[in-house]
């Protein structure tokens, strides 16, 4: 299958491990990812006030670009996923704002697709890799590709906010009791722990503005994970990964009130189970090095 | 008529000397006999009950023990409230009474049933008709806002003085001596009481609300029945003037002063000159002095 792929800024730089493992996994599963030729930042968050137009330009430009490749655009980063999907909905539902966005993009004509005939009506659907795995590939197919089952590894799935909420607009899974990652992890052979804080917020972008507040949010999540005996935390979002990773490092450095729970992307775990070479996994990018833990687990 | 034991309260010898003196002269005029409790001590006011329940009861019990009569009268609303509250508590709680007895070591208190009255009640008991008969100078044309404050009327279950939101006893008395009590809404609003010392700004705000309401109701003077209320309403007008640039110039008299005036007691005896806001100009205007 062929999908347009939008990595987003962070995956192209600071979350390379996420990007490269995802590409590796996709290849293994016969998914052809076609990266958009000239993508730019999506804006990180979609504006929520009803008269905002500016914030829609970037995501719509990305979606319109994707039109030429496929009617499905895949992303991995929760922020990009949320932004693109919700901006797309605005275009579908709000004729007035659609007109404004389309007119503006047509006027500027920056890249070649935006010629005088340019139209976009929200026809591209935005999907997340997890969705593709669940709905198109099937977890049974994933299971068949596993060469190194992660048997007995206690993994806590952590979803964060933007992959699930607002449920009426995102609709990826149950917003309070999601199971998609659980199903995937089971297919990889992990023992999934019931993690009560799997949809709690990690403090998000507050890390740049009020880091002490974000730290406290992340600390709560980390303590809870360590308390229930999780050996690994698995996430889908580069910012969640960073916040939890960074805060964990600080906690381990200061007083060690927790046992280390490395925070991995779900694609890293997939690649690991599917037999990827260590250089693909990109564990070296983490602040809390997952390698000792992974080795201890016999992987 | 038997004599009432009279509890003047601490202010009677200080800030409220004129209340004490006008009380004595009015009672003399009406033939109400007062016998001051010898060696009386402070009732504890707010600070005692605010920090130690037993202390507040003991101070009252001590005064009761010193009292020559079981019928006590006081002009101070705060003392009145303390006495009544303590007697209520002691009568309804035997173990508490025993505890207080241990502290006070009373000599003659046992088994006596005390009744405490505010001076307003005593004059009502004497009879408004009787007062009316003795009026020599009716306070015609003087509009009076009768201010009762908190402690006379609240809590109604213990004080049982009058309607807690719209009391009438002072208004009736003021009307009986020919003045005109005004209808107003702040009769029982709090003046801020002891906060005059620790938080004067609270008292400023509350008293200025009260004074404004009195002014709006068209009152010439405010009549009070409590030294605490009097000093807060009277003295604080200076600060209100300074701080909020509002001048009320509203004389705040003890009801006994107004009563004395109507009964023909001399100005000097009534101590108008001791009030901060001088009432004499308005009284003169009305032809009353």
């Amino acid at each position, binding site marked *: 299958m062929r999908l347009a792929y939008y990595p987003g800024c962070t995956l192209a730089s600071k979350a390379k491990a996420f990007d490269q493992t995802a590409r590796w996994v996709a290849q293994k599963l016969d998914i052809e990812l076609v990266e958009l030729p000239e993508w730019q930042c999506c804006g990180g968050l979609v504006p929520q006030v009803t008269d905002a137009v500016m914030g829609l330009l970037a995501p719509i430009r990305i979606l319109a670009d994707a039109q030429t490749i496929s009617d499905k655009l895949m992303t991995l980063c929760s922020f990009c996923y949320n932004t693109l999907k919700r901006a797309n909905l605005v275009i579908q539902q709000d004729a007035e704002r659609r007109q404004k966005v389309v007119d503006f993009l047509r006027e500027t004509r920056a890249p070649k697709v935006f010629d005088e005939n340019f139209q976009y009506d929200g026809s591209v659907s935005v999907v997340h890799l997890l969705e593709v795995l669940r709905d198109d590939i099937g977890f049974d197919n994933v299971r068949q590709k596993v060469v190194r089952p992660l048997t007995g590894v206690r993994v806590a799935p952590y979803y964060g906010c933007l992959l699930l909420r607002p449920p009426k607009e995102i609709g990826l899974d149950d917003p309070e009791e999601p199971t998609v990652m659980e199903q995937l992890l089971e297919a990889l052979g992990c023992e999934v722990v019931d993690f009560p804080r799997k949809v709690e917020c990690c403090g998000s972008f507050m890390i740049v503005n009020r880091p002490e507040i974000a730290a406290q949010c992340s600390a709560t999540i980390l303590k809870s994970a360590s308390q229930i005996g999780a050996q690994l935390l698995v996430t889908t979002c580069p910012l969640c990964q960073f916040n939890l990773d960074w805060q964990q490092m600080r906690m381990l450095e200061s007083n060690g009130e927790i046992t280390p729970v490395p925070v991995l992307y779900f694609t890293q775990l997939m690649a690991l189970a599917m037999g990827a070479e260590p250089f693909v996994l990109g564990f070296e990018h983490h602040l809390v090095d997952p390698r000792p833990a992974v080795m201890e687990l016999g992987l | 008529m038997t004599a009432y034991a009279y509890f003047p309260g601490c202010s009677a010898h200080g800030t409220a000397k004129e209340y004490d003196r006008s009380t004595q002269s009015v009672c003399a005029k009406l033939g109400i006999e007062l016998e001051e409790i010898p060696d009386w001590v402070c009732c504890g006011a707010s600070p005692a009950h605010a920090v130690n329940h037993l202390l507040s009861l003991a101070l009252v019990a001590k005064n009761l023990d010193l009292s020559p009569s079981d019928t006590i009268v006081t002009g101070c609303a705060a003392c009145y409230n303390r006495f009544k509250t303590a007697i209520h508590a002691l009568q309804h709680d035997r173990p508490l009474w025993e505890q207080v007895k241990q502290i006070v070591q009373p000599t003659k208190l046992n088994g006596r049933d005390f009744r405490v009255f505010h001076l307003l009640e005593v004059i009502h008991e004497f009879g408004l008709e009787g007062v009316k008969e003795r009026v020599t100078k009716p306070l015609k044309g003087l509009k009076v806002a009768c201010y009762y404050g908190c402690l006379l009327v609240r809590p109604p279950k213990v004080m049982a003085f009058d*309607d*807690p*939101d*719209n009391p009438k006893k002072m208004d009736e008395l003021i009307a009986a001596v020919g003045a005109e009590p005004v209808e107003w*809404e*702040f009769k029982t609003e709090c003046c801020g009481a002891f906060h005059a010392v620790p938080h004067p700004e609270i008292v400023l705000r509350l008293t200025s609300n009260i004074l404004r*309401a009195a002014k*709006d109701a068209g009152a010439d003077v405010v009549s009070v029945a409590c030294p605490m209320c009097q000093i807060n309403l009277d003295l604080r007008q200076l600060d209100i003037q300074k701080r909020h640039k509002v001048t009320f110039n509203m004389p705040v008299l003890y009801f006994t002063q107004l009563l004395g005036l109507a009964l023909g007691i001399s100005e000097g005896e009534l101590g108008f000159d001791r009030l901060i806001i001088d009432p004499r100009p308005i009284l003169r205007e009305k032809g009353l002095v």
Partner: protein
Amino acid sequence: MARIGVFICHCGENIARTVDVAKVRDALAKHPGVVHAVDYRYMCSAPGQELIRNAIVEKKLTGVVVAACSPHMHEPTFRKACAAVGLNPYLCEMANIREHCSWVHSDREKATEKAIELVRFLVEKVKRNRPLEPIRVPVTKRALVVGGGIAGIQAALDIANGGYEVILVERQPSIGGHMAQLSETFPTLDCSQCILTPKMVEVRQHPNIKLLTYSEVEDVKGYVGNFEVTIRKKARYVNEEVCTGCGACIQRCPQKRIPSEFDRGLGRRTAIYIPFPQAVPNIPVIDREHCAYFRRGGCRLCEKECPRGAIDFNQQDQLLTEKVGAIVLATGYDLIPSDIYSEYGGGRYRDVIDGLQFERLLSASGPTNGEVLRPSDGKEVKSVVFISCVGSRDRAKGIPYCSKICCMYVAKHAILFKHKVHDGQAFVFYMDVRAAGKGYEEFVRRAVEEEGVVYLRGRVSKIYQQDGKLIVRGVDTLSGMPVEIPADLVVLATAIRASDGIVELAQKLGVPVDEHGFLSEAHPKLRPVETQVAGVFLAGACQAPKDIPDTVAQASGAASKVLSMFAQDAIEREPTIAKVNEQTCVGCFECQRACPYRAIERKEIRDRQGNLIKVVAYVNPGLCAGCGACTVACRNHSVDLEGFAEEQMFAELSAITAA
């Protein structure tokens, strides 16, 4: 010689878990008089009952004790089983070894011992039981409904439509009650009068209903099926037979400034008046207190004006006596006076009104023709504050209960106000919003979300007047902010209490009244429309605060109780009632004083020549509820309770003490 059968139930594990059933059986088998003792898993099941029936026949039992659950649960079951094979049902008793034993104990040995005792003493009682026959009381198939509000109207119509005669007594000049005063009803905003007046007219025209307005129940005698009611028909000074309701008299009356009761003092009426245009009957009444003729002679202008000569100044009150079989009480409610709150002005402010007054302000037929104007100066109201729980839920004022309907009518008032004054603002002070009815919560939310009514959670501490406004000082506990609102009008949702005079009426009937003055139902869950007095039923707010749908439902419920009673020619009652030994009764009538049901009467005993020998007490079987108060009061043991005779009780007691 008694031949008693004992049947012990396991009740599954309920009894058998704690009580050693076999041991109980063996112990009882040896008890004198017991000829048969068995245990079984479920005695109330069909095979269990079969066991009892067979034993009665085979062992020729003269009495049965079933040791099982509470008699409340299964006494009728087992008695029926006995009766089926010819054993008088009152020779069957139940020993409660479940609620009284297995459920409340854990020590198996002691519980077993107790169970044995419990069964034993009932065996001793049953040995002394006598066969009893149910009492049959004849029924007069005619009903009295007291109160002509929506409850009384509905009950009367339902009974009348069932084919029986109804007398509807209303003390006001017209039926309609408070519902007639309402503007619109929640949550549908139906016009109250529009849905009520057709029913009022139906009452008037119904061939089975005898309508007595301006009348009061004076006295009630008798008992279920056989009441004799005295009704005072107050003088209207208008001949109802002749009057056509043309209203000429009203036009002419010079006394025009009497506060109208119907408009709750906000409107005016004349001395001869019809309370409201849709009144039923549409016949005026003269108010003696204000009529110039009655006050000082003269006037009589109405008399001169009446084209039919219907005015009759000489009319007198009439006393009517009616025989009825059942009584429905539908006497409704009043609001507490709002002047008990001196912090809300104590009745001094004319612009502080109650909910019913606001209904009149909203009503198109009201004193302002439906415009919301201030009672004090007739100015339009722009800002109105509604305060709920005024009196209700106020322990300090002696009313701890919730008045139930205020949350809803306050929301309705606020909505209707917004409909009438578009640029006005309505505020509601509430403590909880209790909107547990169909469409109710949605209605309240509509007030907040669509109509812009501002709800503030908290009580109001004080209302005072300033610059022509009412200053309402309250708090919003949700934000923690003290709040002050300058308002043009304040509407107090004052607490609901039962109507005046209800206690006196209840005493005449022997119906208990609760601590707040509402009439008590026989059982709060299972007999909500009956009273302790057989044949007397309840409908509407006389029992507790209620809204219209609940009232109508209860009225229909009461009517159905009456109809099912009338469906029989006689009523069967439990025979366990008091009985006087006329030989030993000395006629002291202590029993009469003790009887809460007024069931004890005086009975004269005469010799054959008709000479009075003595007067003794007589228990009216229609009224006696078998409470036993008289048996205790009687000094020489001349009254005994059938089925619970002293002899039986003592046998039980000595069985216990012997053990």
